[in-house]
């Protein structure tokens, strides 16, 4: 069996490990544009603030490719997939044939058309190791940094570089920060917390025009800056899949086996759409844990095993300046709220199930809630009054269920 994997991040690594669970022998060729050993993308902000380094941020150890007998072609870009011939072509002119192919091409930073952007000398995105190092090299203690985008990437960037620069201003069109993971109240708490550390926000506003180191906003405000970071969002890297004729909406459409519309081609990670079990909708959930689990599922199926990726939900754990957020699922339903203005907890239930939650501050044991969402545990089978105040296994009141979980002898 010949496997080809396009990509070298969580989805690709998951696929390698999934294949090797099932098929120790087949040949695996991994082709990726970035020249680096597999590394954790979300750690680039920790790299800039010194909490990790290039060695420690490797997603797997130095012998990963060797241990798994992977022919890794790093720094090589796949330019075409030919599903009829079952081959991929690379920018070095090589053609590699496959029996099963994984597309784990990830996503690319989206740069919207902005007037005068060409006049900005120091402009960066913040997605890859190289982009982080390029940004780092441009920063000085006198730098005034303008970040466009108050989402996860923009704010992680702000945290990563705050101690290296003079000031940071974040501009976003939305009226609140982190709208992809927080509700309004949570956004307000986190915004105040980040502001305390010296980051300035200008919300409900956007850049009308750049002129060198000056940005004019639509409100008429002006922001002078030395370095620009564009973090307005990402777009799934679907060009190869589209050209190959696969079914692509916003992301590559995948089923619960992580297969695409071509039975020999699988896809995983940011480039895909997959089922969110809290809503029943297919959507893009560009999150590292999901990418790994999709990749692993795809790998097992590619190798002839049987695996399902059928518990996918949006979920995120992230912290800013010491205040942690964990969130999961979706927020449409009945709410249970606890807040003291600094910490925050919201649980959302619908149809007798826990559908989502946001916890800021004390995140301990939140995984018990996540498990209720993923397993679709009917809330009338547990002591929900107990568990909603603090996550605990005691709420699984049925002895047999709790004992089963903990493997306790009856």
């Amino acid at each position, binding site marked *: 069996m010949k496997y080809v994997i396009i990509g070298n991040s*969580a989805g690709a690594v*998951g696929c390698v490990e999934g294949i090797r669970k099932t098929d120790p022998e087949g040949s695996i060729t991994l082709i990726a544009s970035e020249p680096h050993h597999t590394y*954790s993308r*979300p*750690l680039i902000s*920790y790299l800039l603030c010194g*909490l*990790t380094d290039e060695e*420690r*941020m*490797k*997603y*797997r150890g130095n012998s990963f490719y060797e241990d798994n007998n992977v022919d890794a072609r790093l720094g090589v870009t796949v330019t075409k997939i030919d599903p009829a011939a079952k081959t991929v072509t690379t920018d070095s002119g090589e053609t590699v044939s496959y029996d099963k192919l994984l597309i784990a091409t990830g996503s690319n930073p989206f740069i919207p058309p902005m007037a005068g952007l060409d006049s900005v000398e120091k402009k960066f995105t913040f997605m890859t190791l190289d982009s982080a190092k390029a940004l780092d090299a441009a920063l000085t203690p006198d730098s005034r940094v303008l970040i466009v985008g108050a989402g996860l990437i923009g704010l992680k960037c702000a945290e990563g570089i705050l101690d290296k620069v003079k000031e940071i201003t974040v501009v976003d069109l939305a009226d609140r920060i982190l709208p992809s993971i927080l509700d309004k109240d949570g956004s307000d708490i986190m915004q105040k917390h980040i502001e305390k550390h010296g980051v300035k926000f200008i919300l409900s506003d956007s850049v009308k025009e750049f002129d060198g180191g000056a940005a004019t906003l639509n409100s008429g405000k002006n922001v002078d800056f030395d370095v620009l970071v564009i973090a307005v969002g990402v777009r799934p890297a679907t060009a190869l899949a589209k050209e190959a004729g696969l079914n692509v909406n916003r992301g590559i459409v995948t089923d619960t086996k992580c297969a695409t519309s071509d039975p020999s081609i699988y896809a995983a990670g940011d480039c895909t759409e997959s089922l969110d079990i809290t809503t029943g909708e297919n959507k893009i959930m560009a999150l*590292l*844990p999901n990418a*790994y*689990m999709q990749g*692993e599922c795809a790998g097992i199926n590619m190798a002839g095993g049987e695996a399902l990726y059928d518990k996918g939900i949006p*979920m*995120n*754990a*992230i*912290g800013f300046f*010491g205040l*942690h957020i*964990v969130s*999961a699922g979706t927020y449409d339903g009945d709410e249970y709220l606890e807040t003291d203005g600094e910490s925050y907890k919201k649980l959302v239930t619908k149809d007798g199930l826990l559908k989502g939650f946001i916890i800021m501050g004390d*995140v*301990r*044991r*939140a*995984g*018990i809630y*996540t*498990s209720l969402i993923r*397993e679709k545990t009917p809330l009338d089978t547990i002591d929900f009054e107990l568990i909603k105040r603090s*996550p*605990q*296994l*005691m709420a699984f009141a049925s*002895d047999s269920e*709790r*004992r089963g*979980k*903990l*493997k*306790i*002898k009856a």
Partner: protein
Amino acid sequence: MKKIYVNEEWCLGCHLCEYYCAFANSGKSNMVSALKDVKINPRIQVEEGKDVCFAVNCRHCPDPICVKSCIAGALSKNPEGMIEINTDKCVGCFTCVLVCPFGAIMPNDDGHAIQKCELCTKNGNGTPNCVAHCPNNAIVYEER
């Protein structure tokens, strides 16, 4: 693989396992200096109910969602099946806390990394300290 299990009917809810866990992982040789005036942050936690008490720590799941979800590649399963944390690689994002169905992974004392039960294999204790000091033999270390 041998794991730590609790026998609910014997657990008194005395919390000594929590103190012996904190002591074993304190790096100190004297229990008083390790625990006096310290708010302990043990890797095993006792839950107390009306009729039943039990202790919970890492179950070393055969198909561990914490390892799959770790964004840093800091959690791994060793050849024996024990789930290990490499605190040098961990950046304290707490994704594992978000996904552990047992609530058995927690932030460490400084909050920059996580901690979890590693069966006292890394603290020089050799065998699990919670098991050795449970006064009622309610916590056992065995194959199941």
